[in-house]
């Protein structure tokens, strides 16, 4: 790992530690959300950034993980088992889904992945016996020593998810799979010709992405203790990670973290004050981002702004 990445990670770890120990519950909640979205963005980055397949399936994975964990826990399973099992369930689902749609390219793949969340949401709505349907599902409250204990616990849990996301991404980048994905992203036909089993690679990374998003959904479900289909299958859960990746740099290692921090920071600073229309402003932000900074924050160098910031952040990565 390059020196800059190590420094960045140490700084992030120190900040996390400080937060966990010193911060009040409001700040902790914010930090937990950052951790959650960082994990989701790392999840998206695997299939969308490394493999170059514009996936809108993040919401589907997240929601499925939330419900899987919810259903398991209401059947009596402790969270320590429910969370990994939920992740595994979503990984299997992602494998099956991937087998069905990863041969599609571009728009067709994007649409198919987008539509999956809708289908899952409706199925969840209707399967009232198991999921509580439109009335939602209540999860057992974990006894963790009061409100402060809860806040710290879930902050740590989401931090683990984020760390998992970073860890998986780091391993993938350095592995043969990572090289294969870069080849697929740049020229899928040529990748086949040099011996890459493109189908297997794509499905594998899709499963990793699903597992990560699903596990994050599972933690989320316990965190909020009440989930309903519209909430956990919300399309914004697919769109926000993409925007965060765009901000931080698609296909980079630390991009997801940078993007999540910047995006959620902005959201917190400006839009809580403009509560009514903040989703609309988000839309404008996205438009501005795509038009002016399509390569993410490092594009700010183009406009002479924050050139030094751009150099500090670890954008490039060697693939071999």
């Amino acid at each position, binding site marked *: 790992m390059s020196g800059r990445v190590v420094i960045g990670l140490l700084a992030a770890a120190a900040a996390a530690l400080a937060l966990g120990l010193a911060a009040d519950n409001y700040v902790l909640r914010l930090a937990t959300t950052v951790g959650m979205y960082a994990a989701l963005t790392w999840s998206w980055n695997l299939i969308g950034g490394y493999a170059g397949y514009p996936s809108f399936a993040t919401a589907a994975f997240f929601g499925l993980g939330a419900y899987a964990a919810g259903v398991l826990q209401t059947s009596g399973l402790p969270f320590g088992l429910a969370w990994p099992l939920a992740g595994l369930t979503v990984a299997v689902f992602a494998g099956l889904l991937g087998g069905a749609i990863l041969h599609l390219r571009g728009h067709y793949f994007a649409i198919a992945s987008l539509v999956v969340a809708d289908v899952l949401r409706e199925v969840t709505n209707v399967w009232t016996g198991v999921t509580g349907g439109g009335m939602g599902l209540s999860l057992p409250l974990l006894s963790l020593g009061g409100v402060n204990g809860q806040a710290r616990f879930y902050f740590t849990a989401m931090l683990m998810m984020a760390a998992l996301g970073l860890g998986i991404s780091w391993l993938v980048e350095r592995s*043969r799979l990572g*090289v*294969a994905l*870069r*080849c697929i992203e*740049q*020229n899928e*036909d*040529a*990748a*086949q*010709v*040099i*011996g*890459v*089993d*493109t189908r297997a690679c794509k499905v594998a990374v899709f499963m990793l992405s699903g597992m990560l998003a699903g596990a994050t959904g599972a933690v989320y479900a316990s965190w909020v203790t009440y989930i309903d289909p519209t909430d956990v299958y919300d399309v914004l859960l697919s769109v926000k990670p993409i925007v965060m990746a765009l901000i931080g740099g698609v296909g980079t290692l630390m991009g997801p973290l940078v993007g999540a921090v910047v995006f959620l920071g902005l959201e917190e600073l400006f839009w809580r004050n403009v509560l009514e229309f903040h989703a609309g402003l988000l839309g404008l932000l996205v438009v501005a981002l795509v038009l002016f900074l399509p390569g993410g924050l490092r594009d700010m160098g183009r406009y002479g702004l924050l050139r030094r910031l751009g150099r500090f952040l670890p954008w490039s990565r060697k*693939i*071999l």
Partner: protein
Amino acid sequence: MKPLLRLDGVTHRFGGVVALDRIAFALGEGEIVGLIGPNGAGKTTLVNVITGVHRLSAGHVYFNDERIDGLKPDRIARRGIARTFQIVQPFPRMTVAENVAAAALFAGHAGSIPEANRAALEHLEFCGLLSQAAKPASSLTLAGRKRLELAKSLALKPKLLFLDEVNAGLNHSEMDHALELIRAIAARGVTIVLIEHLMKVVMKASTRVVVLHHGQLIADGHPAQVIADPHVIEAYLGRSYAAEHFAGEPA
């Protein structure tokens, strides 16, 4: 001697057109075969079918006596068949070295990423691209890209190599370089099939020539024989020319 590659009744139809019509021939190890024919004869289609890019409509393809028709391109590459593309297909945002190393890593069966990197440098040196190793693949000239294609194909450690119009767009001296490389590759034990428009290259380099026309195999033999074959001449130059110049011989 057991043939390296054997085609048996290979037919490829698409959209009502018969692109390949019951092609049958066999290649032995160590041959350098020229595959020629007028435009649209089906030469690239044949290579695509052999390497798994297109599916056969009928017939079989055997490589080392094992059937390979129906396998996907990556499997076929791993078995030792490589090909270059007429329209060169690099990984544009990777460096020249990374392009070759990727090939070495997968079908080239390199044990590890560092090993693939080492192999890449060797192949680049062989093809005369070592000086450009760190440049992005998209910055190469056409001649450079053709050599990159070649280096990538070599990194796959092929037993059989299809060179599809490697000389298109090259000038005389570049072409001579290319020919030297081809001979050097053959000397390493790789069986080569040259798809070529340029007769000069075919005559100089091949030990045997196979001719396709309208998807059919119309001639197969020693270069000098083949170019004198009236069927071949007719295919390239038309019936009237052939009739004019070969009056009295069976058409």
